[in-house]
């Protein structure tokens, strides 16, 4: 019986294992040094905040693995011998495979800052990072202040976590406005305001110079490029992530920043594949980056590779881009491509609407000439994935999107809806005269 060995029990590896099991009787082993069972990495923050216990963020009950004959090995792979198809584990044991899948995810970036390896300096990616944060910042008496370096999704999550225990947080963001390499100006500005509302000391356009140690080797302060020294007990390094592939250095597997793979997720070595955060496409697919460190893409790669491994070769062929996040109290969803001013093409034009009082806004990207709808960012409004996916497939123009915008709303029942105001602003900005159509169950469910 063919033995499939997956290194990493995150969403990619586990999705792959589940789908292989649906399709075949192959022997499946998942190796992880991080945790006994699969957990949702995106939910680690809620454990620290006390919304859930660690057991709650494990999507399957513990009996699931045995019942589905997915063998779990707790171990750390130190070396991959592709010629003999053998893995050497840290505890001295070894494991043979017929097919090997690398799904080892990421690790936090460190850019060589002086003091980056001091005690009290940490990223937030793994279960071990969470446990470390619980030690480093159990409360605001042990941790009088934390400094977070890097204004991305993990940074703002870490700030929210620490604030839940009323720990003062200083947030160093390299950009002039929060996450404006990804978000258009208006949205980025709104999130800046929201961060300040939560009493987070946001320092835009500020870089970390170095971290200063106390006598015991703990971080006691950071120095910024503005020359300011900020005393703190914890430094969170959240300036992005990088593939976690050091153990593959001498394996002969082609590496770039990640494990190089083709569209079938195959590496240069036969029977070795890579999926998820650690996989690097030779060329980005469409407007996607070669490395996509996103929950959803990890899952999709697992779904696709399972077919290939079970005799139905299937390229990794993601559909329309979508993503989501939450910035403190503000939910964010995106469908299609909305680029920031920094990275958008000249043909991409934006329509922006923001609620006068609440932290609610949307940005619609369109082609300046054809008015084709390219994508939407929504903050504080939920939208239907199916509907936007369909509109993108059908290459609809923005007029169509505005006309049927009410169909796309996914807010809970009785919420105050804003489509009329949005369309009114669109009409004013673009000199149009669109009447939004009433929501139609028939249209909505003919799609879903």
């Amino acid at each position, binding site marked *: 019986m063919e033995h499939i060995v997956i290194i990493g029990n995150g969403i990619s590896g586990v999705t792959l294992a589940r789908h292989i099991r649906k399709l075949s009787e192959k022997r499946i082993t998942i190796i992880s040094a991080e945790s006994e069972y699969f957990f949702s990495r995106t939910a680690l923050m809620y454990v620290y905040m*006390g*919304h859930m216990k660690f057991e709650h963020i494990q999507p399957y009950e513990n009996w699931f693995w045995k019942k589905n004959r997915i063998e779990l090995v707790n171990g750390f792979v130190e070396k991959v011998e592709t010629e003999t198809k053998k893995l050497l584990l840290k505890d001295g044991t070894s494991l043979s495979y017929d097919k090997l899948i690398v799904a080892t995810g990421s690790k936090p970036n460190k850019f060589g800052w002086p003091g980056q390896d001091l005690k009290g300096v940490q990223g937030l990616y793994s279960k071990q990072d969470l446990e470390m944060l619980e030690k480093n910042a159990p409360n605001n008496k042990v941790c009088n202040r934390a400094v977070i370096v890097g204004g991305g999704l993990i940074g703002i999550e870490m700030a929210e976590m620490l604030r839940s225990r009323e720990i003062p947080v200083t947030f160093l963001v390299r950009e002039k406005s929060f996450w404006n390499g990804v978000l258009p100006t208006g949205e980025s500005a709104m999130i800046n305001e929201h961060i300040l509302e939560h009493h987070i000391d946001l320092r835009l356009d500020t870089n970390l110079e170095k971290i200063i140690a106390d006598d015991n080797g703990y971080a006691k302060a950071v120095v910024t490029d503005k020359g300011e020294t900020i005393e703190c007990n914890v430094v969170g390094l959240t300036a992005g992530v990088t593939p976690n592939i050091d153990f593959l250095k001498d394996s002969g597997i082609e590496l770039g920043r990640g494990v190089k793979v083709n569209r079938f997720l195959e590496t240069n070595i036969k029977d070795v594949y890579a999926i998820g955060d650690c996989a690097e496409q030779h060329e980005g697919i469409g407007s996607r980056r070669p490395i996509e460190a996103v929950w959803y893409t990890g899952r999709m790669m697992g779904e696709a590779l399972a077919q290939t491994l079970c005799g139905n070769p*299937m390229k990794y062929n993601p559909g329309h881009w*979508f993503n989501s996040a939450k910035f403190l109290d503000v939910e964010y*969803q995106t469908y299609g491509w909305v680029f920031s001013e920094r990275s958008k093409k000249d043909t991409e034009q934006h329509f922006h609407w923001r609620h006068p009082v609440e932290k609610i806004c949307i940005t619609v990207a369109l082609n300046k000439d054809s008015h084709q709808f390219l994508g939407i960012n929504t903050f504080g409004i939920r939208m239907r*994935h199916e509907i936007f*996916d369909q509109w993108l497939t059908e290459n609809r123009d923005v007029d169509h999107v505005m006309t049927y915008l009410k169909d796309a709303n996914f807010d809970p029942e009785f*919420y105050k809806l804003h489509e009329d105001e949005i369309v009114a602003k669109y009409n004013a900005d673009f000199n149009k005269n669109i009447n939004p159509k009433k929501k139609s*169950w028939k249209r909505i469910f003919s799609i879903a």
Partner: protein
Amino acid sequence: MGNFDRSMSLAGEPPKALNMGQKLAVLTGMTGMGILILQLFNLNLGNSALWLSVAILAIFAGIIWFSQAAYAHKHKGIKNDGVWFKSMSSRGVLAWMAGVALTGFYIVLYFYPEYLGLVKDGDNTGLIALFDPLSKALSGNPASQWFVYGTLYTVAILAFGAKFIWKYRHNKYEQLRTVSVMFFQTAFAFFIPEIMARLNGDLPYYDLKNMWPLNYYNFERYRVNGFIDSGSVGMTMLLFGIISIFVISPFLTYKYGKRWYCSWVCGCGGLAETAGDSFRQLSDKSKFAWKVERWVVHSVVVFVTLMTTAVIYSYLGNDTSKYWLTKTTFLSGVAVILTAVFAWVMIYKREELEKDAKYGAIGYFTIIAVLIGMHFFSDSGNIFIFKAETLRSTYSFLIGSIFSGVIGTGFYPILGNRVWCRFGCPMAAVLGFQQRLFSKFRITTNGGQCISCGNCSTYCEMGIDVRAYAQKGANIVRSSCVGCGICSAVCPRGVLKLENGPEKGRINSKDVLLGNDVDLMDLVNKK
């Protein structure tokens, strides 16, 4: 500073600790409770009306103040920080103490009301006497233990309802739903029955929003006689009771799911959603618990159906000339209705039931067999070897008192706030059956946006593993779902929406989620 000198403070750290406002609020509320407890020891405080008002106002003020101190200074949004750190909401010492106290209260209430001060012939004493002025003002009668309970119950729903509204002030659905349960409790369960008793002394106490099988006693002889004797008002109420079961509730459940009742109207649901909100995360989500739930709750349905049939059967006559409804007509009627439902389900909805069809059939044939047996082997007083009255009192003791009260509410802080609704309520089971098979309601999963975080499952008071559906891109169509909407509220990525839509495509199992290769999705999902 070393990183390991963990604080030894007993008061706890944020977000576990109470702030000063919350502490004072607790003191205020506890003062109100203290007055009531003092009354238990028959300390005569004097002016009952005054002290009752002070006690209830203090409880009210304490809870509202607590909410204000907890939420007013915070932004709108999800307020679950520290839920699993706090003793009260994570089965800590406080939770066990509260559980024991509540359970004790229920045992005394149901079985030893004399300790509360109930005096059968003569003036009440103790706690119940404290409530006499209020009861006399409303219905003209002295208070009973049920009046005390009803008043406290209503106070709890109103005060904790206000807290809930504050907590979910960003969520219109939660607010409206809560206003609704607060209204139905105050008007329908509390004021209207008392006032009706004042207007018409013969009418049995009737909470109009309660329907059989929740008020399993509705068709007992004394009540039916009471209704009939009270003329057209009574007859209307009796008729309403029957129409509620056969017309109103199936219609509303078809349109909106069982939430129209369980989380918008019902009193048990009302208490669970307000006073019980802090305990919703304690429900058991395991597959094993789901299995137990289905066996237990459906057994209760079978039990209540048989018991009610037996009770009605026992007081009906055999002579058609005296009254059109006789023992035989009644039994046949019950059998016909059950057969019609069974046949309809087996013919049209068999596939949706899957394995459960077998259990449904077992339940159905059990009931029919017993009905036939009842016809041949019973006389007016006995159903088989039991008295109908024995069946009734057994049900009343086991289900009506122990299950719904002592376990259902007393164990809130340990087992979660919907134990009764999930494992015991026959009404919820009947409505759930409709919801699963014949309703427009579902919780829609938003394409491929789920990140499997688990907030939805954790905060589902009914113990539904919502995430198991959401992470497959499948809608949630479950008979037990009471439509409280919290899964949708706590979802950080906007994945879940309660809605009523067309029945077609309501149940949609998927293996590959939206966002991936369209061919792959077709290949896997259409199989």
